[in-house]
């Protein structure tokens, strides 16, 4: 297996695997957000900004997979 073929297999795998964790995290976060807003609609204004702050923090982990994609893909010459 040459280097380009290995990169073609591993780079999409890196992006896919890296997005599993944030997907679970954002799913749990959104589910709890909707649960709490449905239970107490008056807290929505207070927790929506916190929801977006956490969204930004969790989502960054998924982008690290894309950083790996970017770094490896710009190095390969086909």
């Amino acid at each position, binding site marked *: 297996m040459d280097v380009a073929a290995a990169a073609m297999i591993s780079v999409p795998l890196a992006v896919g695997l890296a997005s599993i964790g944030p997907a679970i995290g954002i799913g749990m976060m959104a589910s709890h957000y909707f649960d709490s807003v449905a239970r107490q609609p008056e807290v929505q204004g*207070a927790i929506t*900004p916190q929801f*977006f*702050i956490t*969204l*930004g923090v969790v*989502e*960054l982990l998924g*982008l*690290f997979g*894309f*950083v790996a994609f*970017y770094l490896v893909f*710009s190095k390969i010459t086909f």
Partner: protein
Amino acid sequence: MEHFWQVSFGNGLTVHANTVLMAWIAMGLLIGLGWLATRQLAVIPTTRQTAGEFFYDFCRSITMCTAGPRGDGYLFFVGSLFLFILTCNLMGQLPLKLFGPLLPHGELMAATADINTTAALAIISLVMYIALAIKRTGIKGFVSHHLQPHWLFLPMNLLEHITRPASLLIRLYFNILVGEILSGLAMSISPYVLPSAVIFLELFVAVVQAYIFAILSAVYVGLMTEVHDDHHADDAHAH
């Protein structure tokens, strides 16, 4: 990425002219709309003034929810960041490929799809929160903030000044870049229907990313300008 129109000025200074052009257009748009919205202010607002007040209220809600009334001191900074990033992100969804043949190299795309723009914004955020922290708590308070909760945490507190701007820059840049790549991909698969779905997603991402960048900057400023020594000092300033 080979999509940039690079202009060299000698001395090793190279500028991505397409990014600079888009950023200037965004600035001009914001200055023009701001001028329009604040002309002939009245107690009973016109439609223009109401639109301006809506954006002002939204920016103020960002600082209010992170630092309370204390946040009014840096509303100018957070509000400008939010409006500039929002304008840049949304401009990326215009049919800019039509203007591609007018440029000698590269193509027009959102200014925030270039890592130099997002790095500059992240560095502005870093400098701003350090400056506001020193202005509010003094040099002594700024240094003692790094010794919280114990002096052993000093390396970790110093590391935060690198990870905070780095995470801001990576988040914004890669979100917008992924959008550009995704819409290019959709365009090559099916040029008629599929891109509109991607553009719809990208409009949402553009607003959310601008909001997250602004709110995280506000949180960082709010954390750095907290007064630690006296728990009642904050309340005394607020009232």
